[in-house]
């Protein structure tokens, strides 16, 4: 039992299970999934579908946090990516032409790669604190997104573009496959190659990693580029789901939700350890929480208060001092990341 309890996914999964159980008690048909026109419908599918952009952003954020960084600009990149894709599609003669959609998607992805690289360069080459380096793009990015859309909401009528965010493949929402693909690539690269180890090493101690022959600068640059790309894809999903781009509100607060998901997933903000699956569960918890709040008829505005309590609870549970003060038996439970934290915190 203690082995199970010590697994890093134990507590996040418990929270998720508790949330789902609550939903089941509240509305018994919560788990029912119906087939309609060859598509699956149901609350669980909705959670996966609407949670897809957040999961994507959080995956990218996990790797950045693993290098002891933080990326505040993801929300702005989400907005920019959606804006540029929708702008380029709306300029096209035939909005449904495959070539145009592909060009626009590639354009948006390329731009988010560049924005990620900008963050990465500031952090790794210029040596600026991550929170500040990405703050620049967070502030300026919203302006850029509004500049691209001209301050308007750009609407597109392309059904092919809408497919990315709201279409379905093999009866499941297409966005789930996008998430699965990105998660698969990230897991493969970080857990089946040495890259994950490099990232953790740089997160623990960049100087020591450099001494042992790891190109710390390159690793840091790479995680920010990856994070930018993830945010860009999330922006595509988000904008294609509603077939429009809103430079002002798209991706607003995403950075905070993503960081929350990463922290819930057990990754310490002090870097050095990361859990991609934990992050995915964290993002699902946030999405389920939002759905639950909507469902039980509490005004959706209360979501923020609930989120605040969740953040605080998670952080307090992660804090050694708090646990020691409140209950001695909690001491037996340790995320590997927490040992890391206490080592750095001295």
């Amino acid at each position, binding site marked *: 039992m203690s082995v199970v309890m010590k697994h890093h996914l134990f507590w996040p999964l418990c929270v998720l299970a508790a949330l789902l159980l609550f939903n089941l008690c509240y509305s018994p048909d919560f788990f029912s999934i119906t087939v309609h026109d060859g598509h699956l419908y149901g609350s669980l599918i909705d959670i996966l579908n609407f949670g897809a952009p957040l999961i994507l952003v959080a995956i990218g954020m996990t790797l950045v946090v693993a290098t002891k960084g933080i990326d505040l600009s993801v929300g702005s990149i989400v907005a920019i990516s959606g804006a540029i894709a929708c702008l380029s599609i709306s300029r096209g003669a035939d909005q449904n032409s495959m070539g145009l959609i592909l060009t626009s998607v590639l354009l948006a992805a390329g731009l988010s790669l560049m924005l990620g690289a900008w963050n990465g360069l500031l952090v790794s080459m210029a040596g*600026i604190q991550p929170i500040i380096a990405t*703050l620049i793009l967070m502030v300026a990015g919203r302006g850029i997104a509004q500049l691209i859309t001209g301050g308007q909401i750009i609407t597109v009528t392309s059904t092919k573009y809408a497919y990315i965010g709201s279409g379905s493949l093999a009866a499941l929402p297409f966005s789930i496959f996008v998430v699965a693909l990105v998660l698969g690539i990230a897991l493969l690269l970080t857990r089946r190659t040495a890259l994950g180890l490099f990232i953790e090493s740089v997160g623990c101690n960049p100087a020591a990693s450099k001494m042992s022959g790891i190109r710390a600068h390159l690793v840091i640059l790479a995680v920010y580029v990856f994070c930018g790309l993830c945010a860009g894809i999330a922006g595509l999903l988000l904008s294609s789901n509603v077939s429009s781009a809103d430079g002002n509100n798209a991706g607003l607060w995403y950075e905070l939700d993503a960081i929350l998901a990463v922290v819930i997933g057990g990754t310490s903000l002090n870097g050095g350890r990361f859990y991609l699956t934990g992050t995915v569960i964290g993002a699902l918890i946030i999405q389920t929480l939002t759905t639950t709040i909507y469902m039980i008829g509490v005004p959706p505005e209360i979501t923020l208060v609930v989120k*605040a309590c969740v953040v605080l609870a998670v952080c307090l549970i992660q*804090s050694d001092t708090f646990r020691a003060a409140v209950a001695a038996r909690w001491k037996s439970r340790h995320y590997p990341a927490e040992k890391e934290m206490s080592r750095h915190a001295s």
Partner: protein
Amino acid sequence: MPLNRKYIPIVVTILLFIVMFTAGSFRYTGFFSLQVLMNLLVDNAFLLITAVGMSFVILSGGIDLSVGSVIALSTMVSASLVQQQGWPPAVVIPLVLLMGAVFGTVMGAIIHYFAIQPFIVTLAGMFLARGLCYVISIDTITIDNAFYTAMAQTRIPLPGGSFLSISAVIAILVVAAAIFTAHYTRFGRNVYALGGSEQSALLMGLPVARTKVLVYTLSGLCSALAGVVFTFYMLSGYGLHAVGFELDTIAAVVIGGTLLTGGVGYVLGTFFGVLIQGVIQTIISFEGTLSSWWTKIVIGLLLFIFILLQRVLSSRRLTLKE
């Protein structure tokens, strides 16, 4: 003339302000007047007050993301108590200030005693305060209390036909008090020491716990005061007031030359940081054809320049630190 390295960022900030203001004066007729200068204070009084609190937090090596939400909560609490419960402003305003201070104290205590990163704790505070606004009401509450309208409309005449608002005077007093606190009191020196190195401060026997908690208390108090001033300005309480304001505030502090790692910077720099943001907005409104989102891009650009400048100037110090 050999200029001490530590004064370079603040001198650059002040020069930048002068250059921008002069450029604006040459380019637009009617720009060069005392009133335009005074309006920078009138329109940015709440930003100035918040930024002063934030300066102390950043000087101590922390960050406070909750300021915008605390402002919104202050406007909301003021509006609902004054307008819906009919409480007199003389009771409501001290109550709101107390609320902000307690909010900051609690966050500071959690940050210090449970050793959780300020970023996360104040993030939770930001969610909480913003959420509490909506618990009070989802809609705007308009204030038509005589005291509040009087505060909003009173103009203090200055020589030359220009005027200041009461909010601007409050802001100036706060800045003056903050400069005194930062540079001429024991608390101020403790804040600088804490930002320089927490371990050293602890080893020197400075009251680290008290200073750290007090810094967040001060920031909460400043945000609540800014909220009160914001209520004078908007004459309403609304849960979406001051969204994204924490970033404007941090930007003002950074443009003012305060180092985000803590320990280096001046409150006076923050004052000019706020004025620079004000000048950008004024220039954009004088230009007429530029849209307001240019403000964000220009501020982002300025942030970039100042951070690079600080990086270059402090490279020797940072390598020593590492």
